[in-house]
């Protein structure tokens, strides 16, 4: 194993270890970690078996195999970023709905509340 290969393997393992630590301490949810897990494992595979990237390069028709590595990295990062964007969109939807429900509840409590107290319970019953 060459020096750079050892270094790559160690870096990949450290990365994976860090990820598991984050999951273990609940700072990273498993469903959000899947993309990262795939990235880490793929890089580890490339580090352990060096001709893998050459094979991949030949398979897709890239003459200079380090470029193939770059391609894989860019694609993985794009996938991760896209994943983040979908998560943000979901969070936006939820935040909007929560704000709306909060406004409705606030209205029920502040405006409708005194009326239900001072008159009768019928307002509450209708709900």
């Amino acid at each position: 194993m060459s020096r750079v290969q050892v270094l790559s393997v160690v870096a990949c393992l450290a990365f994976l270890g860090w990820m598991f630590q984050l999951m273990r301490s609940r700072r990273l949810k498993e469903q959000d970690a899947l993309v990262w897990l795939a990235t880490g494992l793929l890089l580890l595979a490339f580090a352990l078996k060096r001709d893998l990237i050459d094979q991949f390069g030949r398979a897709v028709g890239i003459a200079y195999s380090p470029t193939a590595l770059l391609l894989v990295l860019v694609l993985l990062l794009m996938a991760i970023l896209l994943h983040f964007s979908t998560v943000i969109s979901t969070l936006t939807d939820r935040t909007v709905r929560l704000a709306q429900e909060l406004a409705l509840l606030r209205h029920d409590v502040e405006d409708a509340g005194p009326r239900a107290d001072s008159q009768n319970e019928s307002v509450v019953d209708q709900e």
Partner: protein
Amino acid sequence: MSSVHDQCEVGRDLVIIPAHNEQATVGQVVRRVPEHLAGAGIIVVDDGSTDATGRVAREAGSCVLSLPVNLGMGGAMQTGYLYAAKRGYDVAIQIDGDGQHDPSQAGALIDVVRSGRANMAIGSRYLAQRRKGSSFPRRLGNAFLARYLSIVTRSRITDPTSGLRAVNRRVIEFYAREYPIDYPEPEAIAVLWRNGFRVVEVPVTMRERQGGRSSIDALRACYYMIKVPLAIAVGLLRRREIDRE
């Protein structure tokens, strides 16, 4: 009981007034509603205003839904539709809080929706008169959107950004679940058409805005002109919401 609460849950019609920092005009809009739409409930959706919009609206006799953060027009209108859906109103009328719509024009819209001729009626400035008044880019953008929307919905839409609209019960329930978030007006038409609702325009006249500022400056206009057509196109590729039920 105080008149404030009496305004809240009366009638079968609900006037929804979305307002973001419209303290100068919202009171006048609220006060004009009972003059023309007697017996309708009024709800002002205070979209995270930093001025006295909420207080002014309450003092004018409206009920107020106060959003804790600014959601934008789409989020605010949907809050109103959620309220209308929960309280079982038959018709919801949108009147913008900036004072450019005259509540006297809303009656015609309600009639259309009540008669069953359409699920949504939109007050159009341009059915009766030519485009004028606003700046050239704005007119151009509006004309483009109108054309685009008319083509994709295969119907005649002349004023896609009009904020004077009336919808029936089925649309209230639909919008409570599904409403576009920012710059929602044109998209809200497309999504209705996509789901098999009928939309018609009714000629109205509008005034210049009475105060506050349009939410659209040059940069946002660019964003608007890209985002809205894209969102409409994507919306048409989506499965129909109604089918999913």
